[in-house]
């Protein structure tokens, strides 16, 4: 059984302008010790879905199931949910500066987390542990920096401090919502390395949300591609990047400069993501899809197994035979999926 199994998650927000359907029938699963990457364009519902699972969205209409160790998180009382948060599921967010309380010392914030779940731990002990954690994530002179305020940390250090905090209770699952988007590549590399190391050490499962396909390719075991609140494609990373089935995944990859040859025209996905208030009928991607068929406009495809691989599913009416699919691709796009160039 997967550590976290989300099925048919729907989240919508009633607003004065209409109902924003942020997540529509999302399902995915995370295995212990594995990393699940969730990619998708901005506004595709990545953050909303994970935050909803942890009970952090307010004013939303939610349906579906999110079984964590077999218990439905969505059905928990706030109190039960609180005992899961932090202790069993740690979270880190995109902007490490605004995610740390500016008025409290970094150490204090970690200690608070520790002592909130383990009242028996003395302050001094908790502090030791905080220092230890900061050292673990590679903060230099952690015994001194533990008393710094967040604004005295650099961006990378803040994010590492966030990780330290999220990991302080040895959670089974770490949800990292775009943990490196605000960081420079060199710092991103540092942070990702820390995450990988911790995962190896503690066997934590990680949900890594990002729209950087490169990051996913490097660290995720499995990948969920989201578009307009729905899962478009689920597969392990090799399949995703090597043999994507869904035209959207394919489009994303082709948009990358790294995939095009030097100074060639890129092949962007035309158009823009749809409004979540008034989604196009059928497959939400159909207005931008080069393979669009009449059926796509009328009917939303369910997740089909691709190429007989149960681990690879795709929500698309196109042929599920990988060979046929590749041929079609060549016909429509004019060339096979190019391989990325390594800088």
């Amino acid at each position, binding site marked *: 059984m997967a550590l976290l199994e989300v099925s048919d998650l729907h989240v919508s927000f009633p607003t004065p302008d209409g109902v924003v359907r942020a997540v529509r029938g999302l399902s995915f699963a995370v295995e212990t010790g594995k990393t699940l990457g969730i990619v998708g364009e901005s506004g595709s519902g990545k953050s909303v879905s994970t935050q909803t699972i942890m009970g*952090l969205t307010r004013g939303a209409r939610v349906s579906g199931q999110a079984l964590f160790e077999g218990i439905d998180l969505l059905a928990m009382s706030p109190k039960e949910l*609180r005992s899961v*948060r*932090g202790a069993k599921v740690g979270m880190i967010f995109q902007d490490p500066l605004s*995610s*740390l*309380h*500016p008025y409290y010392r970094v150490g204090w914030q970690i200690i608070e*987390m520790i002592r909130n779940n383990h009242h028996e731990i003395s302050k001094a002990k908790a502090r030791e542990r905080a220092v230890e954690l900061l050292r673990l994530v590679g903060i230099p002179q952690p015994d001194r920096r533990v008393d710094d*305020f967040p604004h005295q940390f650099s961006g990378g250090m803040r994010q590492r401090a966030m990780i330290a905090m999220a990991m302080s209770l040895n959670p089974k699952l770490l949800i990292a919502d775009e943990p490196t988007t605000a960081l420079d590549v060199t710092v991103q590399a540092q942070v990702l390395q820390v995450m990988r190391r911790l995962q190896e050490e503690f066997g934590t499962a990680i949900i890594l949300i990002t729209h950087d396909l490169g990051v996913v390719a490097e660290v995720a075991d499995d990948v969920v591609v989201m578009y307009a609140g729905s899962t478009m494609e689920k597969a392990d990373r090799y399949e995703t990047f090597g043999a994507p089935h869904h035209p959207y995944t394919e489009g994303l990859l082709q948009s990358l400069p790294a995939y095009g040859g030097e100074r060639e025209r890129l092949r962007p996905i035309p158009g823009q993501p749809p409004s979540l208030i008034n989604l196009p009928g059928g497959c939400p991607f159909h207005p931008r899809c080069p393979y669009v068929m009449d059926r796509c406009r009328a009917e939303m495809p369910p997740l089909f197994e691709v190429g007989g691989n149960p681990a690879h599913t795709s929500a698309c009416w196109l042929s599920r035979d990988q060979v046929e699919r590749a041929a079609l691709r060549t016909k429509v796009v004019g060339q096979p999926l190019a391989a990325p160039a390594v800088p």
Partner: protein
Amino acid sequence: MVRFLVRRVLLGVFVMFVVTIVVFIIFFVGPGSADVARTLAGREATPKTVALVAHRLLLDRPIYVQYWHFLDGLLHGNLGYSYYHGQPVTTILKQAFPVTLSLALGAAVIWLVLGVLSGVLSAVRNRSFWDRTVTVLALFFYSMPSFVLGLLLLYVFYYQFTLAGIHLFPGAGYTYLTANPLKWFQGLVLPWITLALVSAAAYTRLTRGSMLDVLNEDYVRTARSKGLSEHRVIYRHALRSALTPVVSQFGIDLGVLVGGAVITESVFGMPGLGFTAVQAIGNQDLPVIIGIVIVASAAVVVANILVDAFYAVLDPRVRLH
């Protein structure tokens, strides 16, 4: 931190300096100042007194000498002499100050507690029945001129009560705390309420807005994600930041209040700074007016410095800069 405070104090001194110039210009140089000496000397002054006043103020000397003299007096704690009362202005202010202070501090405590608590609750239960009720009430009292509220309270809690034989609140006046604590308290209840309700309404609105903003902050989400209790999230994490604008407003308001709650003191006939000022204005007792204006400005300036200091304590980013 120390540098920050020193800078802040210097700025305060500068502000006070300019205020004295403004006061000086308005009352000594501006229109209607032709008769400064006569006005200063007050009612029933003999020409002799007038001449004396003129001489003492160096009115026959150049403006800057006059100003320097005026400032010099101030620096030595000499706010001038009220010829109307035949007393130094400081003496008059010393009597009025405790009155205003009692009124201001008491009211401030009430409105802070009332305003902040209701603001927090209504932000936390955003759009609930409670929120709507509080919002409507806050808006109502916020719109209420304090003299209307004061008169209303007097009519009900003083006039009607007293007619009914209940002597809970006096209709006016002030008893010094040292003279009779119970009466001091009884006498202050209605003025406190008047002042507090109007201000509390403003604070409810302020706190609610600020709290709503803060509740959307990422670090509040972080706090929730840590599994903290809602209580702790709200009071330890959100409120602390949400208080910042409240604190700065509070400093300004308290400063203004210490300078005299003119209307409330007038409605309830409390001989505080505001009331004294109104009376002084009626009597054209210029030295007292000037004294109160300067003291009141100083109160605001000091309050601002305290706010900034508190700010620094509250927010390490300010402190450590």
